[in-house]
């Protein structure tokens, strides 16, 4: 027997021994046995036709593709869940950084088999896997987004954001503020939520003042802060005096905006704290609007079958102004008009409809 064989034989033996010990000490449950306090509620979770009252905590699991503090896509859902924790009596578990579908699928299955009431698969790539797993766990409610398809399954909810609407409003505001008539947009890759927002923004600027030059720079990465920072600098060199951007890498761009006193318009999360002197407003995703519907549905016995959108009209998207930014009254008025117009349908962005 040679060296390598011995080495691995030993390692496997050690691990096997540990496994046996673990199995002996543990319960007889199958894989997915957990140590959280939440298991105590397994028998009461997963409502059938009877439904639970809000006196019992609802166990919610969030599977997210990136970090919960990314100030973007994932954080928006994470913050929304936490905001509802007390009022809706939720017990929340989170698995972050699970972009790869197979890893996320493992986690989704794990939570579902533990009897969680609601499993949120927060990523557009999780659709196929949600469809599969939801069929295996008819008593668990699944929500996924951003997307619109519930696969005709009674226990799948879908949700998405009409981020072009807020983008439009931000465009109107930016167009009103700019004096150099050059606006810079820092984007990641031209897809998904980012594309929606940027397209809406462009329409908004165009509708206010077609002579403004909107420069869009898709850096090619959602997370490269350095690239975003330098992209912002290139806008500075091009005389931009207003900028916007989307995805978690914009933190770099906001820093440049602060340095150069350039107005910044944010999306997905409230970015005022990142640039208190330059952030004008942020389109904040308040997924709570959708979550309350889903949670009430579950408590009432409906585990899925509906697809939701957050937009300006239902308060899922809110333009949160930075109170410390000296926004001229006429610009704000134009913004409010835009919000009203979109809300009552007189203005359409032409992007998400």
């Amino acid at each position, binding site marked *: 027997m040679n060296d390598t064989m011995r080495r691995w034989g030993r390692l496997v033996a050690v691990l096997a021994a540990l496994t046996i010990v673990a199995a002996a000490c543990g319960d007889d449950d199958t894989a997915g046995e957990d140590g959280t306090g939440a298991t105590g509620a397994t028998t009461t979770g997963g409502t059938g036709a009877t439904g639970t009252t809000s006196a019992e905590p609802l166990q919610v699991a969030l599977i997210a593709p990136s970090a919960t503090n990314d100030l973007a896509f994932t954080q928006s859902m994470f913050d929304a869940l936490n905001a509802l924790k007390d009022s809706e009596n939720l017990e929340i578990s989170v698995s972050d950084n699970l972009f790869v579908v197979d890893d996320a699928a493992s986690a989704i299955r794990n939570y579902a088999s533990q009897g969680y009431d609601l499993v949120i698969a927060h990523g557009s790539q999780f659709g196929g896997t949600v469809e599969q797993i939801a069929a295996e766990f008819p008593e668990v409610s699944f929500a996924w987004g951003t997307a619109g398809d519930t696969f005709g399954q009674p226990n799948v909810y879908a949700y998405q954001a009409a981020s072009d609407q807020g983008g439009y409003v931000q465009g109107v505001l930016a167009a009103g503020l700019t004096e150099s008539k050059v606006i810079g947009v820092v984007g990641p890759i031209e897809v998904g939520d980012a594309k929606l927002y940027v397209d809406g923004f462009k329409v908004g600027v165009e509708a206010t003042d077609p002579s403004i030059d909107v420069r869009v720079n898709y850096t090619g990465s959602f997370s490269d802060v350095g690239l975003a920072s330098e992209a912002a600098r290139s806008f500075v060199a091009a005389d931009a005096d207003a900028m916007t951007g989307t995805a978690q890498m914009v933190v770099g761009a906001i*820093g440049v905006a602060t340095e150069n006193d350039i107005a910044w318009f944010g999306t997905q999360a409230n970015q005022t704290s990142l640039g208190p002197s330059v952030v004008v407003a942020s389109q904040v995703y308040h997924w709570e609007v959708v979550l309350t519907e889903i949670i009430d549905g579950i408590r009432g016995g409906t585990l899925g079958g509906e697809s939701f959108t957050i937009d300006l009209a239902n308060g899922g998207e809110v333009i949160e102004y930075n109170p410390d930014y000296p926004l001229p009254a006429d610009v704000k008025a134009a913004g409010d008009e835009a919000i009203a117009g979109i809300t009552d349908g007189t203005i359409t962005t032409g992007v998400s409809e």
Partner: protein
Amino acid sequence: MSKFFTLTVLTATVASGIRLATPFLLASLGETIGQRSGLLNLGVDGIMLLGAFGAYYTVLETQNIWLAVLVGAAVGLVMGLVTAVVNVTLKAEQGISGIGVFLFGLGLSDLLFQKLVGTPVPIQTFPTVEVPLLSSIPTLGSMFFRANLMVYLAFLLVPVLAFVLSRTTYGTNVTAVGENPAAADSVGVSVARIRYSTAALGSTLAGVAGAALALQLGIFQQNLTQGQGFIAVALVYFGAWRPVGVLAGSLLYGMVASTVLTWKTLGVIPQSASDLAAMAPAVLTVLALVAVARRFRQPDALAKPYERGG
């Protein structure tokens, strides 16, 4: 495209390229020292991340940028000593230990960030320092002499390192240890001590590089370096283990990246070609090396643990 050749735009692009290059230039110089003595450190990215977080957190708590740089260096030093113990004393496979250090740095920096900071808070960045006299030179002054101190440090390190490596006893010992540790050992040079020192120095620079990155950007985020540590390792080969070569490679990479950004902003690169353009720095670096391909010899003892009488 004509808009690109205006002075303002060109100046901004060059300055931007230098700024982009500084972090991996610093890290690459550090890795050069290590590799010259025969140590391959693939964990540079992880050390940069730890240094970056250390610096970021220091500024958050103390608002002192220079303390932050010191902290970054200290973190790098500690990691350097750890890698030295692992690679030199315990004679581990340097390829694997490097990847282990990378994973550790990636995970720990993110973990500490999530637990100690949470939602990102911006910090102050390096002040721009204008070199007196030189910065008033038209165009060139704005390109090269209006940058932050890290940039100047990185550039100054190049001739210093070149001098140390080629003209000092220490440098000769380092090279000897990297080429033929047995021979060096036989004339009384302590292989272990030299390698410890180069590991420490190299990692300290990696930590400083991370600090430079975080303090240039004014923020921290998960995986802030986005693989720049690996680019730093790659550039050592581009530079043929010479500081000047490393500088050339770093500048090439940085400049191409900043040019691509500028062209995207100017609309020279259409959105549809956006992704393909993003690969330009990598492609051009390889092409550049092809163009100047010489018979490089890597240090003979690179990545081989030394054992007396072994």
